[in-house]
């Protein structure tokens, strides 16, 4: 009897490769006759390049090519309009316009890394510079773009007889008004974006980290002026994504175009410094949240306004009210109004919980302020305003156990021992405080195709062009395949991270797992059908001439007509290496429901009474993400997400210089991310309640094919939603000081 690995503590199937250094990331592939590219970036934020002097670089030892902005030597093309969302709105090197500080304006290609880097430093540039638009406060403000489903991004829901949100607020017994500001944040994945491009005739193989391998070939193909099928993307191991590897930035088109022009493989690695301007960032954002409530904390109105940076070069459309104020609480009156200000800044993009994390910091801090204002316990306040249908659409949730997250979390954390009074708990020179928050993240299913091949050695290969950014997708595919086929995990070989595979689920929006597993189940069903067909039609088969309906597959064996045989033995008997089938599942989910993953965070901090040093000492998170596929990888994802939130609360900030338009931080010494000593143990509990409306093509267990992997929702981003608010609320409880401008640094508490 094979026990399904679903929901168990499964070690990563790629673990051994990663601890031995054998896992190949994009920069780790060799190539014959390799050349190395180094990019040069602009040092003004807005203007025109008057001249670029490349003579010294061209004369430097080992230099093969210098491509400069406007020289027309590397031909690149625009994205088709329907794909323009997935890229910056200019084409690198095709003109002499400077759109932001840190834009690529030249590329040097040389025989060695050292030669390319040093030659790049010899290039000098003269600009006709203009003053950049570099302040969110200066405006002008414009309405943000539409939501991903094409709807207006502003939302107004008013109770009968209420004329405006202001009227609803004015009629409320208690009103909380709070203004928030969050700085530019960076994905700062450990692997700087690195591309190796190698042409063979009119086809190019690109090694790069990509969250969406198949769309990557479409986007890069458009940039290069070739068809997607002429581009192969290989990115089996990816050194972190967090959103920065969703779209195609400049490095892949430039590397591939240079390799085409030069006729040699080109490896282009961005430096850490260049990563801060060339691969997106979480936009600078201000928010105003107003809550109206009764004296006992029952909400009568939520107003959530925001103003986000919008880079002129293109970027993320910030909608911080989505899945926060339009989702978390029952309210008769709701107003969400997002705006943006166009600035001359590097292109921005989604960063882990792109709208939800910033939005939840504002809403969940305001809810804590409401708890203080009404004297209602923060957990009780959230339960009093518990939403059973979406406040904006009126639809029920497919599955929602957020109340259980609150109660479980409160119990695990010891919330009942808390004093609501700030500065109530002092231990030596430390003030202790606790805070909590809610979290929600949408669960949207993407299209995915999966191929399963049963082999004559009784193993199966499960192939799909999704991507593992560290999320555990390699293992998820193996677990889902083992479950569907009833095979031991070690007899299932996953294949991902390659656009030559069937198009897989994009690793975006916390959607890869629950988009992939239904297609794995469907592919298992179809492959078993194909195996049966082979068994009854092949003349060498013991079941030749039988009716396929009389055969039954179970755990790697075919049974029927008094016989039983493993698929491997059957295939060997027929002289066949394998049998396969490919199945596709569409995007979308059953209509009539709202789909979200939920969670609750509980945080304890200590703040030094004298220095105001802030340390997170305890953290508990309980998550309702439907079915859990791999308990170990799931816990790691939640812990990582929570630490992103802690980091956003206490450390991360890139300051935009108003005069120059330069982002001030460009290294990991001045853009702070947590180190080990910053982080305590983090207690994570996963409810593991399968979502009854995300069951996939077969519904409940169809008999032959395992379906325990169905009913999952995503969990890659939920940990980052609300965790910063839990930290800030704990800081308030410790100190009595409310900080609404992130990060919460000690100087703000003095």
């Amino acid at each position: 009897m094979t026990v399904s690995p679903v929901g168990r503590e499964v070690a990563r199937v790629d673990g051994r490769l990663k601890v031995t250094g054998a896992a190949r990331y994009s920069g780790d592939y060799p190539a014959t006759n390799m050349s190395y590219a180094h990019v040069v970036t602009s040092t003004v934020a807005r203007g025109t390049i008057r001249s670029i002097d490349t003579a010294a670089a061209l004369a430097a030892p080992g230099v093969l090519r210098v491509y400069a902005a406007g020289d027309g030597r590397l031909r690149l093309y625009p994205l088709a309009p329907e794909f323009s969302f997935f890229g910056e709105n200019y084409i690198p090197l095709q003109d002499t316009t400077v759109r932001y500080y840190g834009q690529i304006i030249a590329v040097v290609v040389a025989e060695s890394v050292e030669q390319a880097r040093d030659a790049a430093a010899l290039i000098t540039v003269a600009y006709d510079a203009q003053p950049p638009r570099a302040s969110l406060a200066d405006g002008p403000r414009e309405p943000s773009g539409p939501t991903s489903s094409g709807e207006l991004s502003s939302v107004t829901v008013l109770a009968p007889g209420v004329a405006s949100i202001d009227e609803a607020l004015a009629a409320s017994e208690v009103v909380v008004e709070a203004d928030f500001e969050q700085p530019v944040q960076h994905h700062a994945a450990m692997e700087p974006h690195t591309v190796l491009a190698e042409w063979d005739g009119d086809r190019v193989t690109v090694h790069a980290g990509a969250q969406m391998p198949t769309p990557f070939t479409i986007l890069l193909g458009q940039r290069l002026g070739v068809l997607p099928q002429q581009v192969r993307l290989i990115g089996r191991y990816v050194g972190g994504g967090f959103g920065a590897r969703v779209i195609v930035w400049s490095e892949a088109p430039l590397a591939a175009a240079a390799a085409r022009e030069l006729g040699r493989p080109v490896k282009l690695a961005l430096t850490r410094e260049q990563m801060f301007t060339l691969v997106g960032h979480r936009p600078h954002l201000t928010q105003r949240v107003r809550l109206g409530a009764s004296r006992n904390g029952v909400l009568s109105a939520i107003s959530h306004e925001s103003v986000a940076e919008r880079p002129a070069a293109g970027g993320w459309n910030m909608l911080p009210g989505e899945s926060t104020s339009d989702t978390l609480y029952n309210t008769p009156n709701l107003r969400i109004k997002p705006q943006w200000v166009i600035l001359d800044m590097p292109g921005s993009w989604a960063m882990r919980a792109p709208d939800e994390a910033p939005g939840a910091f504002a809403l969940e801090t305001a809810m804590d302020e409401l708890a203080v204002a009404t004297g209602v316990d923060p957990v009780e306040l959230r339960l009093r305003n518990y939403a059973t249908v979406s406040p904006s659409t009126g639809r029920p949730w497919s599955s929602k156990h957020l109340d259980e997250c609150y109660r479980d979390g409160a119990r695990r954390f010891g919330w009942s021992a808390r004093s609501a009074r700030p500065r109530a708990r002092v231990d030596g020179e430390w003030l202790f405080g606790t805070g909590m928050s809610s979290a929600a993240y949408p669960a949207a299913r993407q299209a995915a195709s999966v191929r399963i091949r049963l082999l004559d050695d009784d193993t199966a290969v499960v192939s799909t062009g999704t991507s593992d950014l560290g999320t555990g997708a390699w293992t998820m595919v193996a677990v889902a395949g083992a479950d569907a086929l009833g095979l031991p995990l070690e007899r299932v070989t996953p294949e991902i991270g390659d656009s030559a595979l069937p198009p897989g689920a994009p690793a975006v929006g916390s959607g890869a797992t629950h988009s992939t597993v239904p297609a794995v189940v469907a592919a298992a069903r179809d492959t078993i059908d194909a195996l049966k067909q082979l068994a009854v039609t092949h003349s060498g088969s013991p079941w030749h001439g039988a009716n396929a309906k009389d055969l039954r597959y179970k755990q790697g064996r075919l049974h029927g007509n008094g016989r039983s045989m493993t698929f491997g033995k059957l295939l060997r008997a027929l002289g066949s290496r394998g049998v396969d089938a490919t199945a596709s599942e569409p995007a979308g989910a059953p209509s009539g429901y709202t789909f979200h993953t939920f969670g609750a965070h509980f945080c304890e901090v200590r703040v030094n009474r004298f220095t105001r040093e802030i340390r997170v000492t305890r953290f508990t998170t309980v998550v309702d993400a439907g079915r859990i596929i791999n308990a170990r990888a799931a816990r790691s994802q939640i812990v990582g997400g929570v630490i992103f939130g802690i980091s956003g609360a206490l450390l991360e900030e890139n300051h935009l210089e108003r005069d120059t338009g330069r982002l001030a931080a460009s290294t990991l010494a001045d853009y702070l991310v947590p180190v080990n000593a910053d982080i305590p143990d983090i207690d994570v509990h996963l409810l593991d309640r399968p979502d009854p409306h995300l069951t996939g093509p077969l519904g409940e267990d169809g008999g032959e094919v395992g379906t325990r992997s169905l009913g999952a929702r995503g969990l890659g981003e939920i940990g980052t939603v609300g965790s910063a608010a839990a930290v800030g609320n704990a800081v308030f409880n410790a100190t009595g000081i409310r900080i609404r401008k992130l990060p919460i640094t000690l100087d703000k508490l003095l």
Partner: protein
Amino acid sequence: MNPDNDAGQGRSGVSRRGFLGAGAVAAAAAAPLMATVADASTAAEGEGLVTVRVTVNGDRHAMRVDPRGTLLDTLREKLELTGTKKGCDRGQCGACTVHVDGRRVLSCLTLAATTNGREVTTIEGLADGEQLHPMQQAFIDHDGFQCGFCTPGQIMSAVAMVDEGPARTDDEIRERMSGNICRCSAYPFIVDAVRDGQEAMR
């Protein structure tokens, strides 16, 4: 630093045009010399190179390297030992941590030319054949990584940390492992892994 005409050149048989031709003779002369020489001395790259003889994961190499070349780039681009990762190239992230003469160093801040006569161990040299080093196994067992990009540096750092003197508390592990950034933020699991790996190394 080893200028082109240093005294060692004759003994090792290293020449500007590469080692491969003379390598068989040299290898025969110096019995344990298992030289794998990267062909760094193409015409374009040949000027101003220096000779480095270094033992990497037990294999002796004689190389012609650019004096600007870091140990990190040399390992990755010349020796094709790509397990060592470049996360920042300025000594701030720890992804490039290797051992030089048993001590943990940042290979991005170490010029290859300064490793002449030294012993370098990278992540590829840690396991004993198929048998993983206990620290490698502990990182798998505790899920001490996600994307895996910082992992070679974390593990090399952890092994050296234990060799420097075992950590007595989890907080001490956190402190002494804080030169290695993990953006996926597997930190709590790295602490678990290092605690167990340390125990297994004893």
